[in-house]
């Protein structure tokens, strides 16, 4: 084990992964999306021109294949015409009927869908609200619901443009791997503690202590980056989310491990007591980070019953960078920990020489 820490190949592999994800994750563009739609309320019976402001799109005036729809839970209505104003602005003219499929449209909210072959399907949820002003003036018109448009993917490579997340979806390559790295480091620490109790070799105690410290570093970075991200997506640095609270308790358990190690001066007693504590701590950590958030609803994706990694949370373009990111940051974590381990070995040798 110790010779692996001194080798270079795995550090270079980690650095290659990190270079790929830092350049790709920060530089590659986002898919086009819709920022807002004006006006956001429409009246029954009126013919309304909706101006749709898009992001990262490159519409051209020659492009006549744009289609626009409004969609509620029950109805779909196609625009009379849709045309391009400039690269990031599209207009669509809708005639709002009284009812679709003989269901009244009063107070329904509609998603807006714009699609063309190059940009794929752009959606903004609850973009417009139907109000029934001048209800006397309208000619109680009823129309049939249009067929749902096929969902198209953008032709150019881009990360998915999600509502609320938008550009901050790139944090998936920086914030989430911190927690993966923490789990790997703590698992290494846990295995080392078991090996220490079994084999009674001092080096396993050093591995366990250093890896737990590295895990704590990764957890701290994960919490701070998560707080930054939450401020801009959830509106507060610490919303009362089970995953946040679970992670905070898990961190406290490992801080207690560090304090426990400092509080016992006899080295053999220290190693044994902290190894036993570490084995308990890892299982409690697993319970707080992996089980507890899944029992209740969480703001984090994939919690509240469903496992993560579903297609709704991660798409293939994100996966292409997410897995290298997990590998890269975890390898960097092991590199940092290996430095600490080598320091501890050197320190121990020094003490042996002195005595």
């Amino acid at each position: 084990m110790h010779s692996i820490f001194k080798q270079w190949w795995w550090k270079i592999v980690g650095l290659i992964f990190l270079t790929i994800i830092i350049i790709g994750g920060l530089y590659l563009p986002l898919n086009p999306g819709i920022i807002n739609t004006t006006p956001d309320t429409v009246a029954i019976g009126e013919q309304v021109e909706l101006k749709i402001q898009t992001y990262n799109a490159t519409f051209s005036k020659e492009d006549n294949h744009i289609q626009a729809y409004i969609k509620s839970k029950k109805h779909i209505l196609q625009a009379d015409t849709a045309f391009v104003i400039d690269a990031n602005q599209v207009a669509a003219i809708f005639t709002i009927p009284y009812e679709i499929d003989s269901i009244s449209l009063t107070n329904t909210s509609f998603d807006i869908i714009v699609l063309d072959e190059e940009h794929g399907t752009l959606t903004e949820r609850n973009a417009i609200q139907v109000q029934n002003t001048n209800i006397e003036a309208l000619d109680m018109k009823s129309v049939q619901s249009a067929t749902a448009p096929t969902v198209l993917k953008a032709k150019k490579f881009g990360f998915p443009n999600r509502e609320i997340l938008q550009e901050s979806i790139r944090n998936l390559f920086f914030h989430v791997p911190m927690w993966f790295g923490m789990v790997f480091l703590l698992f290494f620490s846990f295995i080392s503690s078991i090996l220490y109790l079994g084999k009674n070799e001092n080096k396993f105690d050093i591995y366990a202590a250093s890896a737990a410290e590295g895990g704590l570093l990764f957890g701290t970075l994960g919490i701070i980056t998560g707080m930054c991200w939450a401020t801009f997506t959830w509106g507060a640095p610490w919303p009362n989310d089970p995953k946040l609270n679970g992670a905070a308790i898990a961190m406290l358990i490992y801080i207690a491990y560090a304090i426990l190690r400092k509080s016992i001066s006899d080295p053999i007693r220290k190693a044994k007591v902290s190894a036993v504590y570490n084995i308990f701590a890892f299982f409690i950590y697993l319970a707080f980070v992996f089980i507890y958030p899944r029992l209740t609803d969480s703001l984090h994706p994939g919690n509240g019953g469903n496992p993560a990694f579903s297609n709704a949370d991660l798409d293939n373009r994100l996966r292409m960078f997410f897995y290298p990111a997990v590998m890269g940051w975890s390898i960097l974590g092991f590199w940092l920990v290996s430095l600490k381990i080598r320091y501890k070995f050197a320190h121990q040798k020094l003490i042996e020489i002195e005595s």
Partner: protein
Amino acid sequence: MNRKIVQSIYPLIVFLFLSMPCFASSSIQQLVFSSQKYAVVTAVVLVIFIGMISYLIYVERKIKKVEDKLNKKD
């Protein structure tokens, strides 16, 4: 004695220093919302960078102590 105090406060200082990008960017929240939240990615990368570099500095200072002792022996 001073050294001990500094050492005990050190993690706190690091933590505050690390969370600086958070506070800084929350004051320009409006600007960030208009620029499609790219700034928060920069803040996150910066936090991770500063965090790992400060850990490296912490380990290096420890290694330096060992080196100094070894050099004294020679």
